[in-house]
């Protein structure tokens, strides 16, 4: 059972990693917690399901979900963030919270509150190694997570757009003086977070084969914990913290008690905040202002 629980934990951790990165991108660049990201994840799942139910292949569903969530992220940036950019930091956060509730309601009205289910597995097949069983979809979720994190790291570290993102994260005013368009970079951060959340939504939706308009709420909160534990200053932090939290969660259920699961996850987050507020891979304390 231990090895099977490790596989469960790694899959769950992959989910947390992708959503935590979405949070981290906006938090890192703008210092704002975009609470509607959990709903971008949920919408990604619905876009993907809609595509799959329309008999489209998985890669098309993945692209549709990523594009759809990115488009909604742009709407959020234009309506819930941009007009409130100069307001106190809590104001845009509350605005995105309002947006998340609206998106839940939209999803309930469009797709209903009943769980939307797939009748068949999108990727059938299962790899059995002794007592451990891994589905093809689980392998895809884990593989896609590593690939997406690597692509995002490459974009942020090696491309002009990534340099602009890091420059704005470092110092928005100086970056503007150096000719970086802060508005464009802000939009890019929202789009990339939408793409990551959309990808997470479709992958997770296909894996569990059942989704609801409220699926983002709890997972979103856990992803925030992962972002804090991993540190918002390093992309790879989420890749470490996601599986760590995923494994801690399933091991608590398996060998501790399911009633104390959330105590362990959020307790770990509080511990990290107290002992190492910059996160596991967050660099030195002096780097706390620097993001991405």
């Amino acid at each position: 059972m231990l090895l099977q629980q490790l596989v469960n934990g790694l899959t769950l951790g992959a989910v947390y990693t992708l959503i935590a990165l979405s949070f981290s991108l906006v938090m890192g660049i703008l210092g704002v917690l975009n609470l509607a990201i959990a709903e971008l994840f949920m919408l990604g799942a619905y876009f993907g399901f809609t595509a799959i139910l329309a008999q489209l292949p998985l890669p098309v569903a993945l692209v549709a979900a990523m594009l759809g969530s990115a488009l909604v992220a742009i709407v959020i940036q234009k309506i819930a963030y941009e007009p409130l950019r100069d307001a106190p930091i809590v104001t845009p956060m509350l605005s995105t919270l309002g947006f998340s509730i609206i998106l839940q309601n939209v999803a309930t009205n469009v797709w209903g509150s009943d769980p939307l289910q797939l009748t068949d597995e999108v990727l059938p097949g299962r790899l059995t190694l002794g007592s451990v069983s891994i589905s093809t979809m689980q392998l895809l979720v884990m593989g896609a997570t590593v690939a997406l994190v690597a692509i995002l790291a490459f974009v942020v570290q090696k491309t002009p757009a990534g340099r602009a993102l890091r420059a704005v994260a470092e110092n928005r005013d100086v970056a503007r003086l150096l000719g970086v368009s802060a508005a464009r970079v802000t939009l890019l951060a929202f789009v990339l977070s939408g793409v990551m959340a959309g990808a997470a939504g479709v992958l997770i939706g296909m894996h569990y084969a059942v989704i609801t308009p409220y699926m983002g709420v709890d997972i979103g909160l856990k992803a925030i914990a992962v972002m804090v534990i991993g540190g918002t200053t390093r992309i790879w932090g989420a890749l470490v913290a996601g599986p760590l939290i995923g494994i801690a969660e399933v091991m608590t259920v398996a060998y501790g008690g399911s009633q104390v699961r959330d105590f362990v996850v959020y307790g770990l987050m509080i511990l990290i905040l107290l002992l190492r507020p910059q996160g596991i891979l967050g660099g030195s304390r002096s780097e706390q202002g620097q993001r991405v």
Partner: protein
Amino acid sequence: MTTTWNKKLGSAAFCAAIAGALFASAPSVAQSQEIVLGAIVPSSGPFAEWGRANTATLQMVEKQVNAAGGINGAKLRIVILDDAAKPAQATNNLRKLAGDDKVLAVAGPLTSSAAEVTFPVANEMKVVSTSQASSKPGVAKNNRPWAFRNTIDEGVLGRTTVPYFKKAFNVKTVAIIYDAKDATAATVGSKIMPALMKENDIKVLNENDPLSFNTGDLDVSAQITKLKSLNPDGVVVSADYSQGVTVIREMKRQGLIKPVVGSTQLISSAILKAAPEIAIVAPATFYATMKGEKAEKFVKELQPILRSTSGLPKDIEPSMYDANIYEIVSMYIDAIKKAGVTGKPESLEADRVKIRDYMAKLVGFPGLGGPIGFNDDGDAIKAFYIVQGQNGAWESKVRGCSTAPGHPGC
């Protein structure tokens, strides 16, 4: 000319005044007023499907009653408020319905969590409130005399469900998993089912290590891996159907194809799609394919309305909770007709008492699945069915009654 004109005007005014007085006193009081009932349903939030279907059901009743001439000649109006399955919102709704809208009685709220906090307010405001879905033990009993539930206590239902489950699948051992955040599911999973299993000599393999999850959890893989390692003959899933779908799909994904038993919360068409190969046993007081003239007529009338209602699935079927709320409003209408309810604003308090007393003494009301009455705890005395879902359909296996055999309520 002016004088003549004034005389004519004066005569006309007099005639009009007399006629007005005559017309005002000629028709019955009822014809000049409307009968107002209230309802609390979750039209948004996690149980929006149930709430929206309940709303469509109530609108159908209102339309049918008014098309047939109303209640004693008075028009029926049902004020429907959404509580989003939130207890605080349900309480505010009841205060508004009883205080502002001056309703005679309230149908709802739906969940046990909402009923637990709304029923004390019903007592405070002295208005009958009857839940269409709450089945957690003791919720109406603790809030007498104004609280009622057109449902049966899960403990009573379990006494027939578990023996059937044991016999049908030769179950000697079970493992239990429940939703810790749902009031009814937590009570059924942690108290009622373990006790019933013991009564029926079924060993609970995780008796000292309860497995739970929280409402809204998408991942229950760790819990199911643990359940699978126990190798039970059957699995108790205590959760509402939307969470039940998540658990049963994960059982299928991990290859744990074992029969499932649960409470009325599992009854839905959605859960039958989760894993058609897994047999599900649960109690119900109504299901869409139920036989019988009243039930079949109800389904025939309501189903097309539900399927054409925006925000509801195109393949939706009337649920047990639609049937329950239909029966609740039908009972209120019967009370108004038979108990001398006037519907006058000045008689509101007396009218509410008459409805309460009618409900408390009710025996043999013709419900969709058989006669309905209420016991001293405020819970329904009615027939129920142990249904088994497999390969996409519910099939009735056992008929039971929530009171002793021979009682006129059944």
